[in-house]
């Protein structure tokens, strides 16, 4: 595919990215605000030789995804928070059975039916494993349509690199926003190396089994130790964007859609002469703790901004706990804010307007 710049929504970027990353199966159930993803894929995936299935529910989607992933095929589902609730069992089995897959959550407000507006209140659900039994998923947090496009492609690589489900956590703003996106073939598409473990019919080799049940004495402990080691190894793929943090007195920490609004607010603060920087985690699990700790060692102060009542705040505090504490400014899910509104809490921490 030659590089081409097009104006599309974040949701559409996810769909196009999946196809160019070589996704062969998509399973999904309709839910706002991510409907463009299955709608676009129902058209373009079959055209590129893939399978599109509208599942009976997100329970169905997740377990279909498990089946396709078990075959070593690049497969994806997309949904919003309530759908992730229903997928937790399947995600847990995929983690336990080491089955790669990509799961996109264009999150919305909750609890319950909540609203279809933007929300970052699924941070805990995404980063704490969500399901029973202590499993963790790798989590990307895009803040632009281009990042939706790039991170979904990278999510497939990471899923196969670690043989694990990977979450891409966006929200209603990222999904619905239209921006120019540079479409390109996967930049660093890796060899999936699935021949060594996928189920495919045993042929002339020994039979294979992908499972999560370990009943023999000590077997589950060994399994979990292996998985814990894998979560640690994932730290090699931590990503973070930092802007003007070197000389900053105050570092604003924000991710996803709040990260992009905070970026503008930090810029406004700089223009007003304040030494403010931005720290935007692009992976939420694993979390860029060492990078944050490094900044804390330098004596910087921190302000966490999220569209929830304080969730990533916990991870920031854990990261900097030996050197500093973090302040928090929360925007409730469903409330839209612009950079000016985020500038106020920043300036307050800088001792008012200069």
């Amino acid at each position, binding site marked *: 595919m030659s590089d081409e710049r097009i104006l599309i929504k974040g949701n559409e970027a996810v769909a196009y990215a999946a196809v160019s990353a070589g996704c062969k199966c998509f399973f999904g159930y309709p839910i706002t605000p991510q409907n463009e993803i299955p709608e676009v894929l129902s058209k373009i995936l079959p055209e590129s030789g893939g399978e599109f299935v509208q599942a009976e529910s997100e329970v*169905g989607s997740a377990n279909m995804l*498990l089946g396709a992933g078990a075959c070593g095929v690049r497969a994806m589902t997309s949904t919003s928070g309530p759908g992730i609730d229903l997928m937790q069992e399947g995600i847990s089995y995929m983690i336990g*059975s080491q089955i790669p897959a990509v799961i996109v959550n264009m999150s919305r407000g909750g609890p319950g039916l909540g609203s279809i507006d933007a929300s970052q209140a699924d941070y805990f659900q995404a980063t704490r494993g969500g399901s029973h039994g202590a499993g963790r998923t790798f989590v990307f947090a895009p803040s632009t349509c281009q990042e939706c496009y790039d991170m979904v492609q990278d999510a497939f690589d990471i899923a196969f690199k670690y043989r694990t489900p990977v979450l891409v956590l966006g929200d209603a703003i990222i999904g619905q926003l239209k921006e120019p996106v540079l479409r390109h073939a996967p930049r660093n598409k890796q060899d999936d190396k699935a021949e060594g473990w996928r189920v495919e019919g045993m042929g002339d080799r020994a039979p294979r089994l992908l499972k999560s049940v370990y009943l023999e004495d000590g077997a589950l402990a060994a399994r979990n130790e292996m998985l814990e080691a894998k979560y640690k190894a994932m730290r090699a793929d931590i990503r973070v964007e930092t802007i003007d943090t070197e000389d900053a007195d105050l570092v604003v920490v924000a991710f996803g859609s709040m990260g992009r609004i905070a970026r503008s607010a930090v810029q406004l603060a700089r223009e007003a002469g304040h030494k403010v920087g931005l720290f935007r985690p692009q992976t939420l699990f694993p979390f860029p703790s060492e990078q944050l700790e490094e900044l804390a060692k330098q004596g910087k102060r921190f302000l966490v901004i999220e569209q929830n009542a304080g969730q990533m705040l916990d991870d920031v505090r854990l990261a900097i706990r030996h050197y500093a504490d973090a302040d928090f400014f929360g925007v409730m899910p469903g409330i839209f804010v612009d950079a000016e509104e985020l500038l106020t809490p920043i300036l307050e921490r800088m001792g008012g307007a200069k």
Partner: protein
Amino acid sequence: MSIQPGEKLVFGAPSTLSDRLTHYCPGCHHGIGTRLVAEVLEEFGCIKETIGVASVGCSVFTYNYIVADWVEAAHGRACATATGVKRARPDRMVFTYQGDGDLAAIGFNESVQAANRGEHITVIFVNNTIYGMTGGQMAPTSLIGQKTTTSPRGRNPKKEGAPLRMAELLAPLDGVAFSARCAMDSVAHVNAAKRAIRKAFDVQRQNLGFGFVELLSGCPTNLHMDPLSANRRVREEMIPYFPLGVFKDVTANEKAGA
């Protein structure tokens, strides 16, 4: 099992079955069902291209007995997982092997929807009217009046509904190519069950749709019966409510016309 000098093999195991003791209780029909599936896969010569989807129940370790590639599904989700497998590998033979709690209670939706989509998979459904693995609780197929650990006064249809007849329920769906109910309590019934299982795989081989076989089974352990009484119960109590027969066979009309 090796044959010693002077011995003659009169009844062997199919090559598709591993040579190991099963964890099934004495007199449990799961062993027969597992063997029948293994025999059919051997006769079709397709075991090397087969992917099994294991369910959660007493059948979970079937992957230790049928020598093939397997993936474990969550409780009730085998038909969804098999859908994913088959869509990813349409060139492979894909089957599930599920109990009644698994297929007809927690996995009812996944099962019915996969059947309705006409997924090209084969589903073997072991109906023993009880939750075996968890210790004998009421199943969606428990008979009226049947006492279980969670229906101590007997299943009351006014409160718990009547037992689900899955083979009849699935048969009218357009996506279903074959649906039958068989039993494993007698040689004649076992032979009929094998014919049905063969058919249920054959419709998949021909890409005709969803193949389904319900196998009426005994669970001596949780029915607190000796194996022979559990066998008799299949005949005397289960078959009158769950009639044996083929409820759908899309290949039957072809033959009649030919």
